[in-house]
């Protein structure tokens, strides 16, 4: 077991352990904060795997943006801050399905890749290499992805605006009453 493998195994234990805490903790804000730990450990794992650019993108987008967005969602939906019952009634069925998935996947992976190893070569995931790959080989998917991001942006704006949408004849009065009630709250 090389030093690299030891570091990666420790980071993997941290990532999976905090992932388990994300899905089992009874405080919803703690779940978001454990998600930060899990994503950070995964970014460390990417660094060990010499994928340094992906590691920094992971830190910037997941830890920086996605978790903050999730925290905004928690606050805006007035979720119960503090201990609350967050698990649904089918927890044991979910546990059985997850255990089955883990057993099948780990068995297949261990049987398939037992004894396969390769020492990673440094510099394979630098920003220079990845930039060249994105803008030479993968430039069409890159452009398609920018259109997708624009569509998602427009969709999110359309979804979160309440003053647009098809006019509903006959329901105008109801909606006005409803809106007044919301302002009172």
């Amino acid at each position: 077991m090389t030093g690299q493998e030891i570091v990666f195994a420790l980071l993997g234990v941290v990532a999976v352990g905090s992932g388990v805490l994300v899905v089992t903790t009874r405080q919803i804000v703690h779940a978001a904060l454990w998600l930060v730990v899990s994503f950070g450990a995964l970014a460390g794992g990417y660094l060990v795997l010499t994928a340094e650019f992906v590691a920094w993108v992971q830190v910037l987008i997941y830890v920086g943006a996605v978790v903050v967005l999730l925290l905004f969602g928690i606050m805006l939906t007035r979720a119960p801050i503090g201990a609350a019952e967050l698990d649904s009634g089918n927890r044991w069925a979910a546990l059985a399905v997850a255990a089955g998935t883990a057993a099948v996947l780990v068995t297949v992976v261990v049987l398939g890749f037992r004894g396969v190893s390769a020492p990673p070569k440094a510099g394979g995931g630098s920003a220079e290499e990845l930039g060249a790959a994105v803008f030479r080989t993968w430039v069409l998917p890159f452009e398609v992805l920018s259109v997708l991001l624009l569509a998602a942006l427009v969709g999110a704006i359309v979804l979160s605006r309440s003053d647009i949408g098809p006019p509903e004849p006959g329901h105008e009065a109801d909606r006005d009453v409803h809106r007044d009630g919301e302002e009172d709250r």
Partner: protein
Amino acid sequence: MHLLYPAVVSALLFSVGVYGVLARRNAILVLMAVELMLNAVNLNLVAFDVFWRDRLHGGQVLTLFTIVIAAAEVGLGLAIVLLVYRNRQMIDVDRLRDLAEDRAPGKALDPPGEATPDWVAEGAS
């Protein structure tokens, strides 16, 4: 480096995400579990890209694309969750049963004694 370590970590992380999606009732916690599953896939992509020494870096570039798609997905998902919250005043996925097939009165999941919300009455009328 042995390829088994990232593959096993990825498999375990994916099943943790599966558990979270199935067991949580808060919609935002379900979104968090989906993010865990996406991260497991990303780890697999990076590990195999490094293992194959891909000249085109297909795995790592696909990981970047997956991260971008995950960001778009969580943005849209949160917009939908906020819309549901605005209409229903709750984001409990167990109680969002408008599209369920079995609408038999005996099978309602609402706990007894709870007042019927306004939107149920509106939808029934």
